[in-house]
């Protein structure tokens, strides 16, 4: 590592960056502590705090552009300190943090505004906004921390907020279970993450980003690999990647804006952030990169395949997120220039996925909270704004030029083809296949929802368009979906260069133009196929299907696997241990007590109550004593 990483102390406007976190955090505290007193205005405070954080984020962004050293840190106070270990409650604002802050607060703000309308009739709206603000605050801590412990603080905070929001309607058993599942699977990743932090400290004596970045070259390759794998496991937990993917689709139990927030602006991007932030570790070991790429490729295919078989509008989108995050993992795993591409895709994805989820929410809002796309159809006439914005986001996600998905996804596919050996073909084709599948399931979703014959349930007469407070965010997100990719693909990688390193591109095994044409072709094929199959709607009842579709409907048996391998044996083990503790360990304790008691009971029998037998024993005792004296006196034992 030639260049050393140095963070300048924050000055001027940037020294107020703690407000970025404090604004939503304080708002969350106010909303949750004031209780019903804040019911009337609570949601506006929630929006306002995130909006203000966005404005501050923008100002900070411009202030950072004017800086010589584009990485400024602010150590607020000594957080944890013992012996040689010391971490500060420190924030870091650098190009990478900056784009995340803008995404989180910007898209987050739109989702907040939308939720004002969406949650209007829910009695828990204030609580909802409290959790929402908490979510944003935790995510901001995650991306703004200047050391791994701070990141971890935000990391678990996000986990908490997602738990609260997923099980927001906690009266529903399924929602409560889904929240718990999300938290638990995240905790598995978190445990790996925290062990990675321990390993960093044990090896390097520091957990600050700058300290680690400057010393990472001193680590042996085995340690680096271990470290990377642990961080990766942590990242897969938060981002819903294989093998910790199962919680993400269940997270749909929360209100729809939650899904938008989790999938677009916060939470799932955390894993990508972590790997991008730790790029110095991942770049240092090629085996590690291969693992990351494999995880990404595998997950993008898993997500896409399952997405094709789902009939629940939100679950299709959820699996689509799994798949798209897989692209991002593919990007960060490829390393080099692809780091920045992954971030670009992440930003673009933030726009169109938020648009898709909020659009889905708008559809549900008009359709009495139904989610089954087999029961939609022909909605374009009734909700024009939702239709147009959803359509634009759809075109964006399948990667049709010149919408943003094309600019963000296609370079990743190209980058996959730029790997050194035969793996270029493997991952390149996987990425292409994923693009085709994405086009297929998204087109299917779009066609079944908005076009074709009406297949509504009887209780729906006239679906209505959502109020402006919900449609305005939709429009803004649609604009972003259209334009973001094209606008960002140039400047963002340059902007991120100080953090992620300079662009070094390899030679692709195919010509660049050939890959582009291929990518567009598979997209068109996928979309066309779906159009042909679903333009006339679909059956409203589940159809018999082949092995693959059945498997996809059952989430490729991931849940069944978890249940059979972890849940069932876990429950059995717990029961066995409860039995063992009661009968074994406590049984031993009580057994000792009982044997002492029983022995005493026997001894008690010696007290016969007959005076003369007492006299006999006294005499015997006296004789024994005399005998002992005599024995000692005459040395019989000597």
């Amino acid at each position: 590592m030639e260049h050393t990483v140095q963070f300048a102390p924050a000055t001027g406007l940037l020294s107020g960056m703690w407000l970025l976190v404090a604004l939503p955090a304080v708002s969350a505290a106010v909303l949750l502590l004031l209780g019903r007193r804040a019911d009337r205005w609570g949601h506006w405070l929630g929006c306002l705090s995130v909006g203000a954080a966005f404005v501050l984020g923008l100002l900070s962004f411009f202030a950072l552009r004017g800086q010589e050293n584009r990485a400024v840190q602010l150590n607020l106070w000594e957080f944890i300190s013992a012996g040689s270990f010391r971490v500060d409650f420190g924030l870091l604002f650098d190009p990478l943090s900056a784009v995340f802050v803008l995404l989180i607060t910007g898209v987050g703000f739109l989702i907040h505004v939308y939720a004002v309308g969406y949650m209007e009739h829910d009695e828990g709206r204030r609580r909802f906004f409290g959790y929402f603000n908490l979510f944003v605050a935790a995510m901001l801590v995650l991306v703004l921390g200047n050391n791994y412990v701070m990141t971890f603080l935000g990391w678990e905070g996000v986990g908490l907020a997602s738990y609260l929001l997923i099980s927001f309607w906690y009266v529903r058993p399924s929602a409560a279970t889904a929240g718990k599942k999300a938290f638990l699977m995240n905790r598995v990743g978190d445990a790996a993450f925290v062990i990675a932090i321990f390993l960093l400290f044990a090896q390097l004596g520091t957990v600050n980003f700058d300290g680690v970045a400057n010393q990472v070259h001193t680590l042996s390759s085995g340690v680096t690999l271990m470290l990377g794998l642990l961080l990766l496991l942590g990242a897969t937990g938060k981002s819903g990647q294989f093998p910790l993917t199962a919680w993400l689709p269940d997270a749909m139990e929360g209100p729809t804006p939650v899904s938008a927030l989790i999938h677009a602006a916060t939470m799932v991007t955390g894993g990508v952030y972590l790997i991008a932030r730790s790029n110095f570790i991942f770049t240092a070991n090629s085996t590690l990169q291969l693992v990351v790429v494999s995880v990404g490729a595998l997950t993008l295919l898993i997500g896409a395949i399952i997405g094709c078989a789902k009939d629940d509008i939100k679950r299709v989108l959820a699996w689509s997120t799994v798949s798209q995050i897989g692209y991002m993992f593919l990007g960060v795993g490829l390393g080099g220039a692809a780091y920045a591409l992954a971030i670009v895709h992440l930003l673009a994805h933030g726009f169109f996925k938020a648009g898709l989820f909020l659009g889905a929410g708008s559809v549900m809002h008009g359709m009495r909270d139904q989610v089954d796309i087999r029961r939609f159809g022909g909605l374009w006439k009734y909700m024009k704004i939702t239709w147009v914005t959803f359509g634009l986001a759809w075109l964006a996600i399948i990667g049709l030029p010149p919408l943003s998905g094309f600019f963000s996804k296609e370079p990743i596919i190209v980058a996959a083809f730029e790997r050194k050996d035969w793996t270029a073909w493997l991952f390149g084709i996987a990425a292409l296949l994923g693009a085709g599948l994405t086009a297929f399931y998204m087109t299917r979703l779009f066609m079944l929802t908005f076009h074709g014959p009406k297949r509504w349930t009887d209780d729906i007469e006239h679906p209505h368009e959502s109020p402006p407070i919900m449609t305005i965010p939709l429009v803004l997100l649609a604009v972003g979906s259209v334009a973001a990719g094209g606008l960002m693909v140039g400047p963002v990688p340059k902007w991120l260069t100080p953090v992620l390193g300079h662009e070094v591109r390899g030679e692709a095994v195919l010509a660049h133009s050939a890959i582009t044409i291929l990518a567009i072709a598979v997209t068109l094929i996928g979309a066309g196929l779906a159009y042909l199959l679903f333009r006339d709607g679909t059956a409203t009842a589940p159809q018999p299907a082949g092995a693959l579709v059945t498997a996809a409907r059952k989430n490729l048996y991931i849940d069944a696997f978890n249940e059979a391998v972890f849940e069932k044996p876990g429950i059995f083990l717990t029961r066995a241990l409860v039995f063992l503790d009661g009968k074994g360990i406590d049984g031993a304790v009580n057994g000792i007590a009982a044997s002492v008691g029983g022995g005493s009971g026997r001894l008690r029998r010696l007290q016969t109550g007959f005076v003369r037998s007492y006299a006999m024993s006294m005499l015997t005792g006296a004789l024994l004593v005399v005998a002992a004296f005599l024995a000692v006196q005459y040395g019989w034992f000597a």
Partner: protein
Amino acid sequence: MTLTPEWYLLLAAALFTIGAVGVLIRRNAIVLFMCVELMLNAANLALVTFSRINGTLDGQIIAFFVMVVAAAEVVVGLAIIMSIFRTRRSASVDDSNLLKY
């Protein structure tokens, strides 16, 4: 055959043995009681003898103490025997084993 102090000791041992055997084989509480007294007096005799052998008065003084304690004990003991006899119409120690277990 001179009357050496050892003879007194032998007498004390014999008295003690008679008392001990009496306690063990007799049932009547009064007889038992008298046997206990016999043992106490055997001990007193031994004490006085040792006092004589050693040429000090310690043993004799202790013998007086023993007598006083024995007298007190007789008072308490007879009272107990009386009250047991009144309630049970029997002075046999084997009949009253209420304090077992």
